[in-house]
């Protein structure tokens, strides 16, 4: 008798996405285990952001299946989708904090309205999460008063406060000034050490080398190659990955 396979935290099966005549994703299969950090790289237009956005259905898949802890994300009512989305935290390239609400209220809004947490509990949880990203002292500030890096860390706290099972990062540092990138990556590293399951779409190759369990290379809407960081960066098998890596390192130099 073989040991039962542990349930993947996130499972993408035969995912397809078409925009009109353009096929953006074709037959994507990806399993992310509990506590795993999967890093997705690829040229722009490769479909990596679209794949990520399909995971919480900000983008509607054309076909395929997505499961979070064994529960389907597709073919469910909007009400069930809202509930499932609580388990999938998302961090955007553009932060998208609510500019009319204080930092604290940004982090408590969904806790109160979607999770129905009492105000005091939501506040306590928010402060705990803000502390985790090093911004407890900014709780009463307005988003407009924060730097980009700080805003992104608040956005991470906003997602974490809902106790998600998996966190999606969609180019979380691409809109940041270089000197602010480090603070966001540090928070992500802490999260990983805390055992959070994460999928990260990013161009921070150095971070991928250090922190990723697995690196997935996408091009033309398919997963071309995947493996450990040392396999992907040290020993790329496909021509497309080699070309991509040399382009990227060319830019970095």
């Amino acid at each position, binding site marked *: 008798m073989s040991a039962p396979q542990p349930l993947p935290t996130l499972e993408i099966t035969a995912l397809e996405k078409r925009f009109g005549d353009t096929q953006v994703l074709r037959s994507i299969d990806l399993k992310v285990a509990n506590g795993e950090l999967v890093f997705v790289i690829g040229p722009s237009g490769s479909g990596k952001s679209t794949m990520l956005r399909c995971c919480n259905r900000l983008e509607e898949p054309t076909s395929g299946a997505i499961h979070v802890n064994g529960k389907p994300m597709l073919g469910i009512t909007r*009400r069930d989708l809202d*509930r499932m989305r609580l388990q999938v*935290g998302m961090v955007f390239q553009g932060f*998208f*904090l*609510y*500019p009319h*609400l204080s930092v604290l209220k940004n982090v408590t809004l969904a806790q109160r309205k979607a999770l129905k947490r009492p105000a005091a509990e939501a506040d306590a949880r928010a402060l705990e999460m803000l502390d985790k990203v090093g911004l407890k002292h900014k709780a009463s500030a307005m988003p407009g*008063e924060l730097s980009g890096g700080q805003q992104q860390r608040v956005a991470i706290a906003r997602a974490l406060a809902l106790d998600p099972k998996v966190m999606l990062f969609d180019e979380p540092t691409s809109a940041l000034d270089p000197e602010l990138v480090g603070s966001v990556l540090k928070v992500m590293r802490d999260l990983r050490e805390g055992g959070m399951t994460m999928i990260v779409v990013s161009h921070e190759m150095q971070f991928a080398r250090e922190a990723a369990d697995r690196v997935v290379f996408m091009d033309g809407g398919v997963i071309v190659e995947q493996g450990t960081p040392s396999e992907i960066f040290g020993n790329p098998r496909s021509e497309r990955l080699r070309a991509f890596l040399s382009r990227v390192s060319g830019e970095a130099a």
Partner: protein
Amino acid sequence: MDFGNVFLNPDIIATYMPQMIRAVWVTIWISVLVVISGLALGAFLAGLRAYQKRWLAWPIVLFADLMRALPPLVLMLILFFGLPSLGVILSDWFVLYLVLTLVLAAFVEEIFWATLTSLPRGQWEAGAATGLSFNQVLVNVIFPQAVRTNIPQLVNRSLTISKMTAYGSVIGVKEIVSVAGSAQAFSGSATPLTMAAIAYLIIFFPAMLLSRYVENRFQYDH
């Protein structure tokens, strides 16, 4: 015939002051009712339109275009002098209230709709990604931002529509212009008209100061 006697005759002022004070109140409470219900109805219609259902959007767009195209006075005359022929009799103040509310709602709907569609899509997505329902995003994320961005426009529209209560004079509402007009006809003096102008200033100057305060109060950095 000196200037003061024509435009500010003390005897005429004393005679018509009580009527004028009542007229000021009529203007104020109709204006307040119109602004409250017009803003609420306009916001509600924009919210409905956000659901992007054709059968909802179509009538709303038609309503907004009609109400913005037709002069309010025409609508009032039709409702007040036309409808009784069909056996529907509406009181003068109600016709004034109804027409101005609908016109304000039409403009407010368009103002809100423009903002709802121009806010970054990420605001909707950030809300949805945290498990908020469409309604919750609309109420807690989108509308508060739309209100803040549009306060100057909303205030301007509200002041403009309040001054349109003067149209009530045509259908017999005893508001400021109506009372001043008949007083002028009875007395043959221009003084009641001066009183009307001053009455409007007394009402709308504080309203404008208040609106400045509100505009500053709700500004925020992006």
